[in-house]
């Protein structure tokens, strides 16, 4: 148990290092000529990175029997949500000056923003239902069914990234490939249809 606690600290420290660098570089004006664009892109990429790491847990457990990893899945998912929030808040403040009408107009006029917004809106219920209490209230099966949304969110996330890129699709394609492998694993092992595994921490 002690080790689980330590490993959570370990994950948190590493998960927050990019944020620390963003803050530190931002403070000393080292984010480049367009710091807001850099901040937006980086937090978006980090959202996807943590989402993919979260989706990596099940294949690792099934393939190598590393079942203990399940204890860290919620936390990884929440870091994805955390960076998604930072991403959205940055966009809303610096790109849209918190002008709701302008944000709605953007969603309407720019498909890539609509896709990203949809992905974010779907992340919210997953974050809200990530607590032990919510797992109990929903029941394991329903919880697992709801959290299969994460597959769709990841697909939308990659599409969102792909659409903002002007012509060099290398990185979006890389994320797409990793996601395809992660989802392909579930298709092949027939896991996608089964109910997943919510984890309620033991008292």
């Amino acid at each position, binding site marked *: 148990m002690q080790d689980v606690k330590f490993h959570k600290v370990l994950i948190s420290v590493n998960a927050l290092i*990019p944020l620390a660098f963003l803050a530190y570089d931002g403070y000393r004006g080292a984010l480049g*000529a367009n710091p807001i664009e850099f901040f937006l892109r980086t937090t978006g990429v980090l959202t996807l990175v943590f989402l993919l790491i979260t989706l990596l847990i099940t294949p690792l457990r099934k393939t190598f029997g590393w079942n203990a990893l399940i204890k860290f899945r919620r936390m990884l998912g929440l870091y994805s949500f955390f960076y998604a929030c930072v991403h959205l808040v940055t966009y809303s403040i610096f790109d849209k000056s918190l002008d709701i009408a302008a944000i709605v107009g953007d969603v309407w006029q720019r498909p890539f923003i609509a896709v990203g917004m949809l992905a974010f809106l779907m992340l919210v219920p997953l974050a809200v239902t990530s607590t032990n209490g919510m797992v109990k209230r929903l029941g394991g099966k329903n919880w697992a069914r709801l959290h299969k949304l994460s597959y769709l969110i990841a697909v939308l996330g990659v599409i969102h990234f792909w659409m903002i890129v002007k*012509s060099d699709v290398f990185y979006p394609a890389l994320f797409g490939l990793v996601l395809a492998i992660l989802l392909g694993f579930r298709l092949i092992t027939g896991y996608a249809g089964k109910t997943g595994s919510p984890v309620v921490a033991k008292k």
Partner: protein
Amino acid sequence: MSEKIKSSEITPEGVYLNRRNFIRAGLLAGTAAATTVTYRLFNPQAVTETTGEAVDIPSTKPAQYSPPDEKANTFEEITNYNNFYEFATDKSSVASKARKFVTRPWTVEVNGLVQKPRVFDIDDLLRFEQEERTYRFRCVEAWSMVIPWTGFPLKSLLDQVEPLGNAKYVAFETFYDPNQMQSSFSAGIDFPYVEGLRMDEAMHPLTILATGLYGKLMPNQNGAPIRLVVPWKYGFKSIKSIAKITLTDVEPPATWNLSAPDEYGFYSNVNPDVNHPRWSQATERRIGETGRRDTFLFNGYADEVAHLYAGMDLKKYF
């Protein structure tokens, strides 16, 4: 069969805890270092090169058309945030990737529908009367800068080759050497980069061939040794590192227009009312500012250039 462990071989609890703490500290430090290195690998720090070849171009003419109360961006900003896909598709890595680009000797071939086709050497081009032009520069990606260029009107060059009466367009081509320009294999556009202007746009006094900025020879990443600057159009029209200029009677191909005709028109005049699927063109972020400012029709040069498009539907001919 069980061997009894001698009590002297049992690690004392204190040592065990120490060792465990030691391992933990190591894990923390090790993974943190790995994460840091990974982060820095993908997000390298900007290279601050404050000088290109610091050769001064004497400005013999007073500056014209400078936007009155607008402050020019810094040399550092202008030279570390560049779209030059031949070198890299990431704006902040162009400066380092273009550092070894060889721009001398350099020739610009001017031919097509002209009386006197000619190959200009870069030294010939630097002998045109150079002047300073501080222009707003608006990228289609909805960011902008104010840049103190040095150069000369394209018209001066075209006058020397004497365009024929049937010349209606000017086509430009960027120098391309895959050995020097190792762009990402996935750049997604074809090289050499090509662009074009209508004859009257090319002859307009605002249209210049720029040979430098901030009074210094053009930095490689900004399109050395000579590039086009058309301040009322999105930045990608202002083709860099020009090798060829051809006068034609048909609308010449333009790289971004070829890659996505519904997104980038041949004209590509700055227009806040023509929506783009990725960037709002109604506003822009001036590099160096955190908020956004309104974008103006023709990038604020409507008084000078609007007449070129009289009677044209700017939403159709975007």
